[in-house]
């Protein structure tokens, strides 16, 4: 019982952190306006941390709380669809790569970043019925990988320090 409450509090704490990360990113100006969709994906720090600390179940639950809260607070149905597609694809690839045990946290996070962008591009292609948008993936693969490296490093730090605090 005590353990359950503890875990619940930790997950609630991480949900709050994830929502704040998403909010901070939403109010920042776009990094490069020529190609929409380039961002660091700060909230992925939480996903990566939970993936390693607990399992994919906890990471997914917290991510959905974050995605739905952010969509209700600042977005609409469209942004909700983009977020869900990006998250689902990225979490699937991250779980698979983590299971293989061949990659470090950073490698897992890089694949997550790239697949997140892939998911969003696929939704954009379906919504706008235009396959030309696929060209954006060339740029978004590279930026997703860079974002993945940064998030992987941050996730490692988060894991290290949260262990120190015994959360």
């Amino acid at each position, binding site marked *: 019982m005590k353990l359950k409450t503890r875990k619940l509090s930790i997950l609630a704490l991480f949900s709050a952190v994830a929502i704040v990360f998403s909010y901070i990113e939403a109010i920042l100006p*776009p990094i490069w*306006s*020529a190609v*929409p969709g380039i961002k660091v994906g700060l909230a992925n720090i939480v996903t990566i941390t939970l993936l390693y600390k607990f399992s994919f179940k906890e990471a997914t639950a917290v991510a959905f709380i974050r995605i739905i809260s952010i969509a209700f607070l600042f977005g609409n149905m*469209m942004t909700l669809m983009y977020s869900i597609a990006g998250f689902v694809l990225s979490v699937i690839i991250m779980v698979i790569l983590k299971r293989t045990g*061949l*990659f*470090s946290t*950073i*490698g897992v996070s*890089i*694949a997550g970043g*790239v697949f997140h962008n892939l998911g969003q591009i696929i939704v*954009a292609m379906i*919504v*706008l*019925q*235009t396959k*030309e*948008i696929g*060209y954006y*993936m*060339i*740029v978004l*693969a*590279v930026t997703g*990988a860079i974002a993945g*490296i940064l998030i992987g490093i941050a996730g490692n730090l988060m894991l290290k320090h949260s262990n120190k605090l015994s959360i």
Partner: protein
Amino acid sequence: MLKSNKIKKVRNDIILVAIILSLSLIGFLIFKLTMKDGNHISVSINGKEKYSYSLSDSIETDIITGENGENTNTLVIKDCKAYIKSATCPDKICVGHRPISKDGETIVCLPHKIVISVTEEK
């Protein structure tokens, strides 16, 4: 044992990044090499082609969208290049996009669901 495992993982990470980078490079090269000058501008709203212009024209026109016609994107075609001069969308990504002229190039306005693409027509 633990240390060699760590080095192996870092090596795998680097291989992963190399694969991603080379795939994008290949995609970029294919994109660049197959790119030809287009001669037509097609404007799609909500996935359906609505307007069509010749790239050799010199025009400035408002693309009106939204349920009550509240959204405006001003499309300019000049010197065989097309760009969005101004827009009422919140992000203004379409306005910041560089002018397009090559076959297959697009300007997308996600909030207004507009795709402006260069096509090649005989």
